[in-house]
């Protein structure tokens, strides 16, 4: 039982491999067709922007893998034969495993738009997408305009990327305000304004009807559903979310839904086959989490947990308090605990925004018990450990508001806003 094969060399698979190595002497093989070595997917944007080169996005030097006896195999898995514990690779060869872990991540969603497979249409997820973008949008002369379809985290990152090369961007967002399925109204609208301040042509409540081709099968323009307007462009970025990258699993006996179905131990229906990261789907969501969590941190946590199970210390995946972060152009965002776009029944929000329109926060709490539930901050850094502790201790919102400065994580000499926030909070209580 000592031949461990991991499909996928992203954060989930690599974290798993590292932790198995720390705990044991098992043979570990990581298969990927994307790149030879692990890189940070979240950093792809910085390569296009010229902040870093590709090698800088690799968290481990190339000697690391051999030193830790983690074999890397550049191959594409076509099919899984769970009866014989064997993988069929695209080059025709086979690979046996004792334990198999599927950590193949996501792929960009495509919703059957006419023209979605034209040249110049791409997602922004894989290394190949980046290479593709470099071909079709090297500069503003070759790419006179780009249209991005889908207003989420990848969409705004793609907009920032293209903006860095002065390529005009039209940003089509289906929702009435940017990412407002996740962000409360005040935050979402502040980001709308920030996007526009960067001279990005943000179109809210706007859907894509079709992508038109020129005579060479390349993107020529897009047509807007609502108005019929045709926007000439050379690149279309499809960033309307991602879904599990599991087509090659469908032919096997492994149970799938939208993702690969796993229990709380990250086990599939087939013994010795596991799934972690973006491609795993919990039978039942854990707490307030989604059944599929396509987030860097959860991928890593699943890897940390599953390594224990693989090394004979079977362990449930029990993530702690929710946290996440992102950056919207120049505005950093952090969240701890739960802040819903719209407060649930018996919950309410306190929202504060700085007059310069680049900083704000929203605190969610139970309006009956006053228990603090979560916080979103924009433009102010917060200390993870402090909020994790407060959430565990079930602090009430007054305590959190009065001790907010303890959680501040901004660099030294930064202006502090806690007093202003607290007075706004107290004022709201009086008027409420």
């Amino acid at each position, binding site marked *: 039982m000592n031949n461990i094969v991991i499909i996928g060399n992203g954060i989930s698979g690599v974290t798993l491999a590292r932790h198995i190595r720390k705990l044991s002497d098992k043979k570990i093989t990581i298969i990927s067709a994307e790149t030879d070595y692990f890189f940070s997917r979240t950093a792809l944007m*910085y390569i296009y922007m*010229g902040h870093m080169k590709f090698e800088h996005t690799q968290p481990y030097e190339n000697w690391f893998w051999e030193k830790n006896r983690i074999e890397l195999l550049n191959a594409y898995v076509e099919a899984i034969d769970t009866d014989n514990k064997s993988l069929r690779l695209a080059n025709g060869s086979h690979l046996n495993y004792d334990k198999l872990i599927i950590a193949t991540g996501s792929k960009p969603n495509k919703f059957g738009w006419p023209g979605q497979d034209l040249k110049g249409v791409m997602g922004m997820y894989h290394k190949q997408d980046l290479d593709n973008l470099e071909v079709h949008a090297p500069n503003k002369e070759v790419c006179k305009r780009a249209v991005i379809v889908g207003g989420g985290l990848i969409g705004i990152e793609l907009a920032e990327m293209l903006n860095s*090369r002065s390529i005009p961007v039209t940003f089509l967002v289906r929702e009435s305000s940017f990412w407002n399925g996740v962000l409360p109204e005040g935050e979402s609208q502040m980001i709308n304004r920030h996007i526009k301040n960067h001279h990005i042509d943000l179109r809210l409540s706007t859907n894509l009807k079709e992508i038109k081709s020129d005579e060479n099968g390349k993107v020529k323009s897009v047509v807007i559903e609502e108005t019929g307007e045709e926007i000439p462009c050379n690149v279309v970025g499809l960033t309307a979310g991602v879904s599990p990258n599991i087509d090659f699993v469908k032919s096997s006996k492994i149970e799938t839904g939208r993702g690969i179905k796993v229990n709380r131990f990250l086990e599939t229906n087939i013994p010795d086959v596991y799934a972690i990261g973006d491609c795993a789907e919990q039978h039942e969501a854990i707490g307030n989490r989604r059944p599929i969590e396509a987030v860097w941190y959860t991928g890593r946590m699943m890897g940390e947990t599953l390594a224990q199970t693989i090394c004979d210390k079977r362990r449930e995946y029990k993530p*702690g308090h929710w946290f996440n972060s992102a950056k919207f152009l*120049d505005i950093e965002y*952090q969240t701890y605990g739960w802040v819903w776009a719209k407060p649930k029944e018996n919950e309410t929000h306190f929202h504060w925004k700085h007059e310069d329109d680049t900083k704000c926060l929203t605190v969610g709490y139970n309006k009956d018990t006053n228990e603090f539930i979560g916080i979103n901050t924009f433009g102010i850094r917060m200390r*993870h450990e402090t909020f994790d502790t407060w959430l565990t201790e079930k602090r009430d919102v007054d305590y959190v508001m009065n001790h907010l400065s303890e959680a501040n*994580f901004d*660099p030294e000499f930064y202006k502090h806003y806690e007093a202003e926030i607290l007075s706004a909070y107290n004022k709201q209580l009086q008027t409420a």
Partner: protein
Amino acid sequence: MSLAKPDAINITTKQKVALATGIVGLLILALALFNTNFPNQGVFLTLALGMVSIGTIIYSREAYLTKLEGIKNDGVWFKSISSRGVWGWLVGVILTSFYIVLYFYPQYLGLGVDGAANTGLISLFDPLSQLLSGRNASQWFVYGTLYTIAILAFGYKFILKYRHNRYQQIRTISVMFFQLGFAFLIPEFMYVMNNDLPYYDLKSMWPLNYYIFDEWSVSGFLSNGNIGLALILFGIITIFVISPILTYKFGKRWYCSWVCGCGGLAETAGDSFRQLSSKKMSAWKIERWLIHLVLVFSVVMTTAMVYTYLGYDSNDFWLTKGVFISLVIGFLTIVFAGIMIFKRHELGKDVKYGAIGLFAVIILLVTMHFTGTTEHVFYVKAGALRSAYGIYIGSIFSGVIGTGFYPILGSRSWCRFGCPMAAILGFQQRLFSKFRITTNGGQCISCGNCSNSCEMGIDVRHYAQKGENIVRSSCVGCGICSAVCPRGVLKLENDSMNGRINPTEILLGNDVDLMELVNEK
């Protein structure tokens, strides 16, 4: 097609004009270098320095003030000058040549020898030198002026670049202030007040200021009564008292990225090259050996130097050769023993190298003293040792390589591989300081912006992605890793010594029981 990179010279008309202005200013200096006789040197010098400064200022304003506040690293790895392209190498060659001429052939800069009048570039600076101290310029005055202009002009650029970040702004104002005041103006005024005093940049400590304990320097100070004595005492107090206290409270950054001139140039004029420092493990290994060897070299050299000019008879002066060598050995032994007794459990590999180096120095000094090779260290004269240090470390390493190679090795190669001062401060920072860079729980996404922008070549991400605080002897606390982090993961802090180094296996945010189980072994 795929080779087509975005246009690197993608600058506005205003920036082109600014660039041209700066180049004309440099051209005046170049003409002077090639012995063009300017009729009114004062006017032309003002013109040259003014145009360089104004060019830089207008260029920077156009580059940063036309955009929203935020991180401004777009295209850094595309631009030829900041990614070891043709322009990078060209600037490297020009800078290196300048340093070689400056240190070894000042006559080509126009230095008048044996009382002759200056010519060329140096004579162009005579009016300014006359204005400040009433004497003609030397090659060091020319260098000091250009150095100061560079820190001020590029410091202004840096402040605009990080105008959303008060830590960066305040820090930069600090290095600009110390360069202009302490390194440039005060020594000139001190000369006016008392022209026998050796040049003394008050903020420059031994062993960075390796010549302060030279015989000519010490006797220069001592022959000037109380003010001279006060200055040399100040020199001793800074290294043995002031510096340890400040480093304990704030880390070595108080000096390296707030005060030091070498650091000041690296942080301002060198900012465009910070990403070029190697983050490889192999580079770190070289660094640990090299910097500690230089430290050993400087301690032995200085000890041997002082030793040679002290006397034997305590009736002449209480500090005899014997007393001095005992003091040095005693001090080093206390430091060595202290580390071994109190800090041995914390000793990383790098610190062990340092401790071994220290021990080697003690042995060497004992051997020197008792074998009677008084004037000779291993049969090399102390004077020869001193001049070797001056040439190879003081000039070639810190100047020619340290600054000349900015566009190749990054902006802090001297600070990282060579500076003995940085080694001492780093040693203390690693073992006895409240300073660390705190990692924010589990928020790291391993993107690598922090490591990329570390001028000291620290692989910051290596720690951040493990949720471990960064406590590294080489960290100069510039704070750029924290600034460029897109997820708010890093914070420079002075906090309690306890739990400063916190290696973890499982990061915050996962199963609490699992974290406890795995992290507590």
